[in-house]
């Protein structure tokens, strides 16, 4: 199994509070991604990174920011959580010549 660890695995937070989710990899892969999974939508890309300090927006980036200060860590921040951000969040990694993306175990975030 690819070495990807997401933390926390579960979190309940209140509307308006900041939340940071962490993705840590031990594979030294160049690319890292954050997706959210919602019923009826499958997984949708929030943000991705193609190197340290290099990030770009995905399909559903509003309300989210990311940072990557080290190859192994990719952080997803909700500056002010809203109920619409209640979801399961997945981190994924991929390498340049590899066709497969590897996924973390997911983080279930509930905003009340």
């Amino acid at each position, binding site marked *: 199994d690819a070495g990807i660890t997401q933390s926390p695995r579960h979190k309940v937070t209140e509307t308006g509070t900041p939340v940071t989710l962490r993705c840590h990899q031990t594979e030294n892969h*160049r*690319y890292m*991604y954050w*997706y959210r999974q919602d019923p*009826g*939508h*499958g*997984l*949708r*890309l929030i943000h*991705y990174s*193609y*190197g340290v300090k*290099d990030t*770009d927006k995905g399909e559903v980036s509003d309300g989210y920011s990311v940072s990557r200060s080290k190859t192994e860590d990719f952080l997803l921040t909700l500056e002010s959580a809203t109920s619409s951000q209640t979801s*399961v969040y*997945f981190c*994924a990694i*991929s390498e*340049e010549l590899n*066709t*497969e*993306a590897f*996924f973390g*175990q*997911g983080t279930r975030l509930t905003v009340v």
Partner: protein
Amino acid sequence: AQTVTQSQPEMSVQEAETVTLSCTYDTSESDYYLFWYKQPPSRQMILVIRQEAYKQQNATENRFSVNFQKAAKSFSLKISDSQLGDAAMYFCAYRGLMAQGAQKLVFGQGTRLTINP
């Protein structure tokens, strides 16, 4: 923009029987990959099978095979000799490339497969 559609929210099959899950996609790209992922209750995303668009031969992995119809933009998954452990949510996904070589995975809505003993 690419889209992936799974028109069967739920499917069920008797153990040991064969089931086919449907997927259609839309793209203007000529070079891409297609995948089927399995998501059991543990939430882990598990790659089941992949298909390269330039290959005409359908991919096969043990009991899992695909019917890839490039002109029709169709990519169905056939599970033979269904087992109880096959019960899961199945996602069809399209892979293109973004700037800087990052992968762009576009997922369908998912099909929940139930195996009846």
